[in-house]
């Protein structure tokens, strides 16, 4: 058991072939996968779909996935970023979010997703100190750090 069995994961990735690879890896880990390749659909799923976790490709062609991150944050759904750029490619406001390096590797994906499961979901509202085993949510304490676009 990977501990990820049956977890519902949103995968946001704008390249068809890469999305297929990511989806297959998640399926191999036993997850249920929702794939979104466009920002509008990704935001809609982040707002309304029944999700446990998400993987967001940062660069979505002509835009970025930060609005998806904000929607997930509002619902307290943990997520990781995926990028080929490394840490410098991420807006500073999101520097507490774990980053998965591209190209996708199943071991790295599994480790980071398990890491998300060990974190407690932040409560509704903006309580600054969270009983969280990692620094994931604790660093993001207020809506002023979250982009609205």
């Amino acid at each position: 058991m990977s501990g990820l069995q049956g977890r519902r994961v949103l995968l946001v990735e704008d390249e068809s072939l890469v999305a297929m690879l990511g989806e297959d890896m998640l399926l191999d880990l036993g997850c249920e996968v929702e794939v979104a390749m466009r920002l509008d659909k990704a935001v809609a799923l982040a707002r309304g779909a029944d999700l446990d976790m998400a993987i967001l490709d940062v660069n979505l062609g002509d835009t970025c996935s930060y609005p998806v991150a904000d929607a997930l944050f509002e619902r307290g759904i943990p997520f990781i970023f995926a990028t080929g750029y490394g840490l410098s490619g991420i807006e500073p406001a999101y520097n507490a979010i774990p980053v998965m390096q591209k190209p996708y590797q199943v071991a790295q994906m599994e480790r980071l997703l398990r890491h998300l499961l060990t974190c407690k979901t932040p409560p509704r509202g903006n309580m600054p100190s969270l009983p969280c085993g990692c620094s994931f949510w604790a660093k993001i304490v207020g809506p002023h750090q979250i982009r609205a676009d």
Partner: protein
Amino acid sequence: MQTFDTTTTTLPTLRRGSQLYETERRLNAVLNNASVAIFLMDDRQHCVYMNRAAELLTGFSLTEVLTRDCPLHDIVHHTYPDGRPFPLAECAIDRAFPENNQERGEEVFVHKDGHFYPVGFTASPIRDDEARIIGTIIEVRDITEEKAAAERQRLLTNELNHRVKNTLATVQSIAAQTFKGKTDGVARQTFDARMVALSNTHNVLTAENWESASLRSVVEGAVAPHALAEVDTARFDLVGPDTRLHPKVAVTLAMALHELMTNAAKYGALSVPEGRVGVSWTLEPEGSGERLDLVWTETGGPPVAPPTRRGFGSRLIERQLPLEFDGSADLTFAPTGVICRLRIPLTALGWHGQERVTGRVAR
């Protein structure tokens, strides 16, 4: 013939506080604080006034230029960058004078210290009360930085093209080394063919600096037997208007067509000598842009049976392509031949930061 003589209207001859004095003072303030070099030329192409930016640009003072009493060209534009003399008769700025208003162009000037520098110029005629042209105003700016930036951009694009191709070749090699003797030859061939299809699409993109690709080139590239070959017109009918495709659309469409080609060659119309493939497309208005409607039709092949399992090709076409472009795909295994209908909106596709880099919005 009337000529300018600005040297006679210098400030000390005007009464301090008079309206003319104030106007002149204001104009001098404007001219000497402008960052663009401004030259006032008479009808003999002699410079009769230049502002401070012009002095800085050329290295010559106004007094020096006035003393030389010759066409400005002979002072700042007398030699080609390769060292040949540059006669006034060949000068584009001179030719612009006097017919055209706001004539623009780029030239290479010679500084007083002898170095060459690229400039952009705008020349406008000045007319007298009878509308006769009596001189020219030439605005000139040093475009060394812009030229250098364009060159850096060109080198970076070349490097990008080079690295993408090398990376694809490296992936191919890693796969070859990894699966040597561990997998059947068919899988290797399929993999290599897909890598080549991807690589060929990148050829189309690199030719266009990654901005866009010609739809027709993408379709022709996908159905040609190899990169340098012509499309076999005995087997293919390609009908449709050309348009520009965003790189993402070009790559996914090319991969989809490659999968259709592979399937046709193995099981469909291209598996028998008399089979044919038609690829026809139209551009339909949709929203503020266009939608590509493309139909792939196979005829003359053996009877088609629907596949027992859906592989990479049908997954890419039926699922990924609509997801990626908010379009639709319809793959039908009709008994008479495979039919694939693709609808791909071509609107509002750009890349992140494009406006900042190219100064324009996609489409």
